[in-house]
């Protein structure tokens, strides 16, 4: 017998193990720390400044003032004289919220739908995937516009709408993987053990597709952020005085020559969020695969 294994550690889950492995990936940890910092700033940042999101500062010489410590406008002000520091963190808060919630919605529906269709196969698979094809055929801009008209404009609606569109691709990817996994011998062994289909899907199929799912989810986040700014641009998304990173970048691009900080600051925040998400996603994918363990 070897030395006793600590009694509580044997109950560690897949995620517990993944966390143990993730801790060894420096890039992922740095990315996670940066993301946490951005999230923290998005939460408390607006209170750090003396200004509010809709307050116009008439005391400056021009409305658009460059970043300066002296004026208290650390990131400068926009063309309307509003503090960019506050607006960036309000925008980050909005973008992250929409991105994370929409991605969760699309991952949950997409994985459940795709894994079920792929595992059950046959006629069930046919019907489930034809349903996906039909939804694919709907022009989703149109779909979102109808939703907004029917239910009125709301934040919840935006991420539900985006998520409801995003799960289709996820379902197709997961279904393809599940279809291949179903043929594997360990799935047969699980069936021969008398496990019900729901358990087999949840325990033997889904964890095997998580790597792909995570990579795809990290790709979805920037898409969602951009899609949200597009919706806002059409007047269907976030409205003034609230803002989002996508909107800030779009507005900043208009003033690029006269006041470059309006473009640079929100772009830098957006880029670092996306970069961190990619590194974290990459690390997470490796961490979820026990064979990658060193």
């Amino acid at each position, binding site marked *: 017998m070897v030395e006793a*294994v600590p009694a509580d550690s044997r109950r560690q889950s897949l995620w517990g193990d993944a966390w143990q492995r993730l801790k060894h990936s420096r890039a992922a940890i740095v990315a996670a720390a940066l993301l946490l910092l951005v999230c923290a700033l998005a939460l408390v940042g607006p209170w750090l400044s003396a200004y509010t999101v809709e307050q116009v500062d008439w005391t400056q010489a021009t409305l658009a003032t460059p970043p300066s410590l002296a004026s208290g406008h650390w990131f400068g002000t926009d063309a309307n004289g509003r503090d960019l520091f506050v607006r960036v963190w309000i925008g980050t808060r909005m973008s992250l919220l929409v991105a994370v919630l929409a991605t969760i919605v699309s991952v949950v529906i997409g994985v459940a739908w795709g894994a079920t269709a792929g595992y059950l196969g046959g006629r069930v698979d046919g019907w489930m995937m034809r349903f996906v094809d039909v939804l694919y055929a709907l022009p989703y801009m149109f779909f979102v516009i109808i939703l907004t008209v029917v239910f009125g404009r709301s934040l919840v609606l935006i991420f539900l709408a985006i998520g409801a569109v995003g799960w289709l691709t996820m379902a197709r990817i997961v279904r393809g993987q599940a279809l291949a996994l179903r043929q594997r011998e360990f*799935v047969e*062994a699980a069936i*021969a053990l008398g496990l019900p289909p729901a358990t087999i899907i949840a325990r033997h199929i889904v964890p095997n597709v998580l790597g792909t799912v995570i990579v795809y989810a990290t790709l979805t986040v920037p898409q969602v952020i951009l899609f949200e700014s597009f919706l806002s641009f059409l007047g269907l998304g976030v409205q003034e005085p609230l803002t989002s990173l996508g909107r800030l970048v779009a507005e900043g691009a208009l003033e690029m020559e006269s006041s470059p900080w309006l473009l640079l600051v929100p772009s830098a925040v957006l880029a670092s969020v996306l970069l961190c998400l990619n590194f974290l996603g990459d690390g997470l994918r490796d961490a*979820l695969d*026990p064979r990658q363990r060193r």
Partner: protein
Amino acid sequence: MTAGPLLQVRDLAVDFSTSQGEVQAVSGVSFDVRAGECLAVVGESGSGKTQVLMACLGLLASNGTTRGSVQFAGRELIGANERLLNTVRGTGIGLLSQDPLSSLTPHLRIETLLTEGLLDRGLASRDEAHERALRALAEVEIPEPQARLRQYPHELSGGMRQRVALAAALMCGPQLLFADEPTTALDVSVQARVLKLLAGVRDRGVGVLIITHDLGVVAGLADRVAVMYSGRIVETATTDELFSAPRHPYTAALLAAVPRLHGVAQSRLVGIPGDPPQPSARSPGCAFAPRCDRAVERCGDSRPELTPSAGVNPCMTAQGDSIAARAVPLAAVACHRPLQDRAEIA
């Protein structure tokens, strides 16, 4: 167990509908497995051995259909609903599959793999299941079971993985174990170990149905043998009889193709000429006839039925006249011109 056999297979047939039409993979297969007995099904690749197991467990590919009767402990499995099948799978019949590398889910710990059957059915609490997993690993002679439970399948050697798979198949206490070529993927020394464990399982009163193409495995473990060729059983006998006096020319040819260390020195190993027939293109006669050196004209025209061998206690007492209750002979051969005695093995 009651007096009847644990597993009664009668007239089992498996068909696959493919793009080339209906293919008969298995037909007219009947056998019994009793508690504490090991039956080996021997045959070459494509003879339908594995499909017999899969049909018994309801695990056929979706284009396969099954006819006939499979009764496990008195319950009919052919055409049974998933609920009954899921009760029998794992708790009634355990399956040990060929490739220990791919039969263990790679991202699950050994502990999860061993205990999920128990936990999922609520047969044991977490702590009980943990204890039983430890004992199960010890039973299959895996050192440091406590540490192994926390490992993943890829961290174990091939032989260890197969023993873990055996432990997993036995966790829910099945009365019958299906072993599908359990030693094919292993090296010789590990093979011997796994076979010893299987013999131990049998000696504890579990019925073992082992599928193999390795006659060495049969000799060491099986009480009785059924030889399959082209989807049919061509000969059944006790292991001793089969090895000392094979009656079907195919069995004899198989035995002659095995190298021997003792006894009469053979100058060359004898192969069986030709290839086994494609399941889609079977002749009306004996499937082995084209490769058989004893074949006569009749062999190509009419298929010989499995008939009890002369001089052998023919069959158990019949229990009724339904298909399921019909008795099968313990020794039988399906050949128009069976070998009569040892002298005839050329």
